[in-house]
């Protein structure tokens, strides 16, 4: 692999897969470099065909993990079980640094496919107001693009990945190219209909899932089939029912013959050519031998995920860029954001006791942000939505953790009980310059790479949102017809871990002004024209919607632009 590639793509996750597919399909020789191991789609690491009694240790994680304090950031999380352990990264092996009083959570999946294997697949467009927010209230760097710039790329991405969703006709959550939506449960329908009677701005809609319900010709040609409603997505899907790099973009890239793939290689730096003023390629460290080697290309796309790309940028030091490549503005690493929750609410839904659910729907329901405008005298800007669900009625459970044994207890266990609706707030965190990631001055990982030190926290605006979200959701549940409503609000003095929602972004924001931003409207470095960063690092604000669809649209758009420059030799 001594050739000079047209393009190097760093990372093979959601955005890297997209960059690879786009460049390969446009005829460019593309090298994808992935730090994790190779994972075969439908290979032995997929555990989706195992029944509960076939999963090792009955899906319990070895207790030694706790004894050795491994995976400490995700132990206890619902998505982290024995059947999915192989797809998550151990933070003990791959440490990060943060201030003691502000623990940060960086949930990673170091393997081919990255977190596209493990993600929740909720794919929501951002609306026009989301792109206008920074300019409107003066926080962060104004977005250099608007909804209209991305709309065709949302269409393009949705058509390929397959999105099952309903056309809800909401300005705040524009509709797109959708396949048949998932059905709401009887309980969810009750709430949705009740909300419609009272509100014009608060809607309960079915989630929008990157799980296919009506496979297109293109999807079938890639070996993808209809989602089977197993909801075992995080174990990998042998049906190719959900979108991942492994099931979709990488096979699409591979079949062009233009893809080279290197796994087990950590991109350490982007190499800068002082004479041309461009990136000439990257230096990697082999994860196994720890040896360094370099690859060259005409264009470099960083798609390693927001924080990893920041780490690479900061680590890429040269005479021109002593503080990291593409960092003439000094803003690389700044404006770290994530969504946050601070309110969990639930309530019984009466009146549907004679109804039952079947199957395991792979997506929740959603209440989109209705607080873009500062109204009702609230003391915060921006807003929040709620991820919510009542897809199955609850059951009586077992007595595993309560008093009682014997025949009677057994007979009463796991019997159908009420329908209960659960809602979780997802708030928009403002882009604060001081929330930042930098290289730790002394601490290094086992490959000698400086650790990322991440210093980020919520501020008063977000805390005020939590209070109002708590009031709002109580009312929403009441209006929805719920009873026995319980609200859990995180106290103001309790640290809420940034990164916990796994939507970490920012750090190399897009903007028109090179003095205050890292990337232009094409996600192209202001400083180094053949360097692009198209993962979450490029985001100038975080809105409230799950972000990966927007990352994909930005990546496809940037790749299209870069391809045109490559073709016209203007890079």
């Amino acid at each position, binding site marked *: 692999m001594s050739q000079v590639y047209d393009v190097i793509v760093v990372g093979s996750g959601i955005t890297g897969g997209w960059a690879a597919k786009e460049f390969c399909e446009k005829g460019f020789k593309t090298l994808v470099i992935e730090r994790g191991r190779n994972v075969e789609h439908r290979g032995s690491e997929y555990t989706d*065909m195992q*029944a*509960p*009694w*076939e*999963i*090792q*240790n*009955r*899906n*319990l*994680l*070895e*207790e*030694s993990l*706790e*004894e050795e304090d491994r995976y400490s950031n995700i132990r206890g999380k619902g998505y982290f079980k024995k059947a999915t352990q192989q797809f998550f990264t151990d933070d003990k092996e791959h440490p990060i640094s943060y201030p003691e009083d502000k623990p940060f959570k960086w949930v990673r999946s170091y393997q081919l496919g990255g977190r596209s294997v493990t993600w929740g697949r909720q794919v929501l467009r951002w609306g026009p107001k989301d792109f206008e927010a920074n300019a409107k209230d003066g926080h962060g760097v104004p977005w250099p693009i608007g909804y209209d710039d991305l709309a065709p790329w949302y269409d393009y991405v949705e058509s390929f990945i397959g999105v099952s969703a309903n056309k809800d006709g909401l300005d705040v959550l524009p509709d797109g190219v959708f396949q048949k939506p*998932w*059905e*709401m*449960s*009887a309980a*969810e*329908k009750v709430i949705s209909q009740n909300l419609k009677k009272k509100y014009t701005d608060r809607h309960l809609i079915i989630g929008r899932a990157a799980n296919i319900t009506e496979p297109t010709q293109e999807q079938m040609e890639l070996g993808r089939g209809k989602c*089977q*409603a*197993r909801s075992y997505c995080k174990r990998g899907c042998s049906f190719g029912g959900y979108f991942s790099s492994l099931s979709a973009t990488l096979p699409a890239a591979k079949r062009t013959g233009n893809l080279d793939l290197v796994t087990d290689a950590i991109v350490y730096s982007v190499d800068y050519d002082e004479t041309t003023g461009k990136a000439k390629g990257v230096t990697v460290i082999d994860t196994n031998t720890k040896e360094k080697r370099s690859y060259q290309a005409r264009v470099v796309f960083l798609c390693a995920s927001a924080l990893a790309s920041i780490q690479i940028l900061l680590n890429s030091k040269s005479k021109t860029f002593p503080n990291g490549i593409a960092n003439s503005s000094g803003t690389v690493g700044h404006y770290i954001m994530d969504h946050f929750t601070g309110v969990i609410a639930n309530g019984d839904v009466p009146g*549907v006791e*004679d*109804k*039952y*659910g*079947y*199957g*395991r*729907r792979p997506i929740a329901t959603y209440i989109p942000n209705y607080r873009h405008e500062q109204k009702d005298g609230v003391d915060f800007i921006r807003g929040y939505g709620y991820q919510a669900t009542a*897809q199955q009625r609850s059951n009586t459970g*077992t*007595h*595993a*953790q*309560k*008093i*009682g*044994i*014997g*025949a009677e207890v*057994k*007979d009463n*266990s*796991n019997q159908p009980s009420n329908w209960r609706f659960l809602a979780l707030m997802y708030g928009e965190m403002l882009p604060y310059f001081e929330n930042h990631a930098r290289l730790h001055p002394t601490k290094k990982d086992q490959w000698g790479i400086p650790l990322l030190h991440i210093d980020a926290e919520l501020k008063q605006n977000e805390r005020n949102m939590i209070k109002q979200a708590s009031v709002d959701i109580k009312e929403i549940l009441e209006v929805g017809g719920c009873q026995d409503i319980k609200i859990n609000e995180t106290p103001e003095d309790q640290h809420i871990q940034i990164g916990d929602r796994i939507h970490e972004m920012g750090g190399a924001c897009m903007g028109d002004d090179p003095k205050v931003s890292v990337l232009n409207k094409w996600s192209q470095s202001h400083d180094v024209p053949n360097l692009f960063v198209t993962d979450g690092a490029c985001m100038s604000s975080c809105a409230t919607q799950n972000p990966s669809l927007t990352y994909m649209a930005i990546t496809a758009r940037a790749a299209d632009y870069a391809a045109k420059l490559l073709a016209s030799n203007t890079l």
Partner: protein
Amino acid sequence: MSEIKISRRVLIGSMAYLVTACALPTSEIKSIQLQKVKLDGQYFNAQQLTLLTDVAEIMIPKTNTPGATDANVIAVLDAMMLTWAGKKTKQQFNFCINQISQIAKNTFSAYYTEITLSDRRALIEQLDANSFAQTDTELSASYRKLKKIIFHIFYTSEEANPDFILVPGGYKGSLTKTELDEINKRGYLG
């Protein structure tokens, strides 16, 4: 003598340790309705396995549906002691077994495996009640942990999930009971 077969599935939790399928050979002591395990397991010895098998069956007895013994709960637990259990859990389970034996001796002046089923049931019921009433003792913590894993293994077993469908084929959110039963019987949405 009856044999509690460990199916291949039971072995999944302990693949690394077992080469061939094995069985827990038991013989029933009819007078006191106790299944006595005759061979040591991979982690627990035969006596411990006998006690645990009995305790699990008292917790989750066979009724018109399978019980803990039918679901091989203790055979799976024995394997999982090697692949799942941490140091503390191992200590707790050994402690709990010893304590149950000790309580039997103190109360009935006999080994646990010598007392009648109704006495054994009474003992475990009492232990269960005490363990949830007063949670700050070592015995309570150990017993509750043991109970939790026994229930977990049982309720994730094939025997306890006769209606489980690995590939539902779709989702419906508003079915009548009759419609649901029909789909479950068919085993696929159709």
